[in-house]
């Protein structure tokens, strides 16, 4: 038993796990940025899950019919913006509860893509085709001599590479720019922002539209970059994992993105465990157990920190 456990572990924890972990993290990072931006204007936006499903399906569909991955990604992003715009009108103008709206989008996302799969591709469950053009991968030929370096640094899709500057840009815009200061102030104190002459609803609208764009991108990447197919329910809770990572990083894009790596790690370990006779139900559970653990840890540590800070026994 011991020998076989050691064998399994040696098969799982290899250098190629780094690549797998990073790749598995990227869709969650994109979903997480959706949660981060809306959280910064004090909106708990749970719709990432549903928007990702739309992004996945339309990414595959546009790529299939046009043969252009770039067009497919653009359509998915715009679709994310459009769905967010509908939510924004309902939430900001007609004051519909944002949680109910998000729930609706998520339910429609699952059901509608399943329906479209049957109508357009006359199939159910999943759709694979050679005509679907994936997002290209960038290989670094000068690393090909070293399998380790090549595995870690080479062979990422365009979107995977793009994610790093995107997160840094978002952080910079939130914390160093006029736009970000005003956006964050809306989330922290709406009245103070309004009396400072800031158009509060406009800021919220922009934040929602941007978060939709990120979720749409997450969807297109999931079906055209991370994989090259459409599967029903393929978002698999990544939208929610992104929210958990947002919580973990206290809505700071960089910390939140680092939190996503933990999910990427648990996802890829789970994938590698499957062939070793561990019950499938248990393996698929791992990312969700990780979600609960990460949330619990971040909430507890934040609580401990604030209790310590608020204590009257602490010397100031």
């Amino acid at each position, binding site marked *: 038993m011991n020998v076989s456990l050691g064998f399994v572990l040696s098969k799982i924890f290899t250098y190629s796990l780094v690549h797998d972990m990073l790749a598995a993290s990227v869709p969650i990072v994109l979903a997480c940025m959706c949660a981060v931006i809306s959280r910064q204007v004090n909106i708990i936006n749970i719709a990432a899950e549903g928007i990702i499903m739309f992004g996945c399906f339309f990414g595959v569909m546009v790529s299939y019919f046009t043969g252009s991955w770039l067009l497919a990604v653009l359509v998915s992003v715009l679709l994310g913006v459009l769905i967010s715009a509908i939510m924004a009108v309902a939430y900001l103008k007609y004051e519909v509860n944002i949680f109910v709206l998000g729930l609706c989008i998520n339910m429609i996302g699952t059901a509608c893509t399943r329906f479209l799969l049957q109508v357009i591709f006359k199939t159910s469950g999943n759709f694979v085709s050679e005509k679907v053009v994936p997002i290209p991968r960038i290989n670094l030929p000068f690393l090909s001599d070293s399998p380790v370096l090549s595995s870690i640094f080479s062979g990422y899709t365009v979107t995977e590479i793009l994610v790093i500057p995107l997160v840094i840009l978002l952080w910079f815009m939130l914390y160093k720019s006029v736009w970000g200061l005003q956006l964050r102030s809306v989330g922290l104190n709406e009245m103070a922002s309004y009396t400072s002459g800031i158009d509060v609803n406009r800021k919220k609208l922009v934040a929602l539209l941007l978060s939709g764009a990120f979720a749409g991108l997450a969807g297109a990447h999931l079906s055209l970059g991370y994989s090259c197919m459409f599967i029903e329910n393929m978002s698999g809770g990544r939208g929610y994992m992104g929210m958990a990572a947002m919580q973990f990083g206290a809505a700071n894009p960089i910390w939140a993105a680092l939190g996503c790596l933990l999910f990427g790690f648990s996802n890829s370990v789970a994938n590698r465990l499957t062939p070793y006779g561990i019950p499938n139900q248990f393996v698929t559970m791992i990312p969700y157990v990780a979600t609960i653990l990460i949330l619990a840890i971040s909430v507890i540590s934040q609580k401990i920190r604030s209790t310590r800070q608020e*204590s009257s026994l602490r010397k100031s």
Partner: protein
Amino acid sequence: MEKIVEMNNIHKQFPFVKAVDGSRFDLYKGEIHSLIGENGAGKSTMMKILYGMYEIDEGEIIVNGERVTDGRYTTHDAIAHGIGMVHQEFMLVKEMTVLENIILGSEPTKKGSRNVVIDFDAARKKISHYIENYQMAVQMDKKVMNISVGEMQRVEIIKALYRGADILILDEPTAVLTPQEADKLFEILDIMRRDGKTIVFISHKLKEVMKISDRISVMRASKYITTVNKSETSIPELATLMVGREVFLNLERTPAKEGEVMLDVRDIYVPSERELSKIRGISFQVRKGEVLGVAGVDGNGQSELGEAVAGLRRIERGKVFLDGVDITNRSPLKIRRQGFAHIPEDRNDRGLNKKHTFAENMLAAEIRDRPYSRFGILHTKKIMEEARARSERFDIRPRNPENLAGSLSGGNAQKIVVARELGASGKKFLLAAQPTRGIDIGNIEGIREMINDAKAEGVAVLLISADLDEILSLSDRIIVLYEGRITGELVNDGNVNEEELGLLMIGGGKND
């Protein structure tokens, strides 16, 4: 002199009240114009309208000769017209720094960054100009949550000036200051007037109004009454104009009895989100049949003290006894069962459920007991009978207990809270936190009498109030809180000096 603001025939309706009813107001360049009236008279609403925070239902506003109400008029437009406002409830983002708060919405940007990247150095430079010019010290890098209330007010004033305000509206600015700090503020306002700024001073403290105004406008019950020149009026005349009758806020205080100790607070430590509000070791006793007043500038731990005693905030060290029973960190329900009555400091947030009826609110604390319910089923008839009886006894208007609590005026809503807390039998101790904040003079008189009556019947009262007049009119003894510690204790024998109290309130106590 040049007229720079004119507001004519302004109407504004809120869900339950007509806040402004055909009122008017005007401003001449370079004057200090006071707008006085009772709480709820519509002063703040009128000025929030001028600042673009509320849309008006009817009327016109003319600023610098331009009819701004022809189109949509927002706060953004008001700022562009050189209007700045310091609100009674400060409009600051407490998680952000003083610097960020001041520049918010008018951020200077770095050259060549296409108005994207904030230029904090340029902002600092511009702000230090105001700090020096008006001698208003602020710590630019501290988070707002960690500065004192007086400093927050200076931040608000600088914020308005930074936006280029020529017209500065101050809504009850002295309510959060000690007498000395208020004098300092008046000096600053005087310098601003000399610099050509125009100032609107909203207040109901007539002494201060007479001290600094050029002209005074009076509002009563949502209506404009009149405008007078300072030189042609007097405090009694203003008081009559403001209330519509002569005012006597002279309560006949019942002398304290030498009763046994009812509340015993022993060296407690209480946490707070704000550094200056943490309670750091305080002890005192309240005896049967006396009122102990807690004075101090808001934010020095008064709220934390009240919440700790009431079981709403954790006590980290020390003990609290009520009539000999240890109530430290007990649940509010258990504490109430010991005969603890509580008028919470925020009527809208904690005191009342505005969406429930008057009767439901009034009996909320007793509704689980007979005769108001049996086996969990409400006995509506008994509830209504008792609510009606108490509305007579505590003079709550209108009398109909089926009205929603939210439809009552501030004063009458607060009386529901008092009736709930003091109407039940067996109360030994009353914690009254800011019991008359934001209510009209008639009801202030009524509520102060109720508190005095409760004391006369032998209830021990802990009165927490930022209003010095209230502390002096009700208390038998006074303790002063400053940064979570007691800086002094005085016996209120009728010779207490306000200056001395003011000194204790800014930490200059005998104990130092």
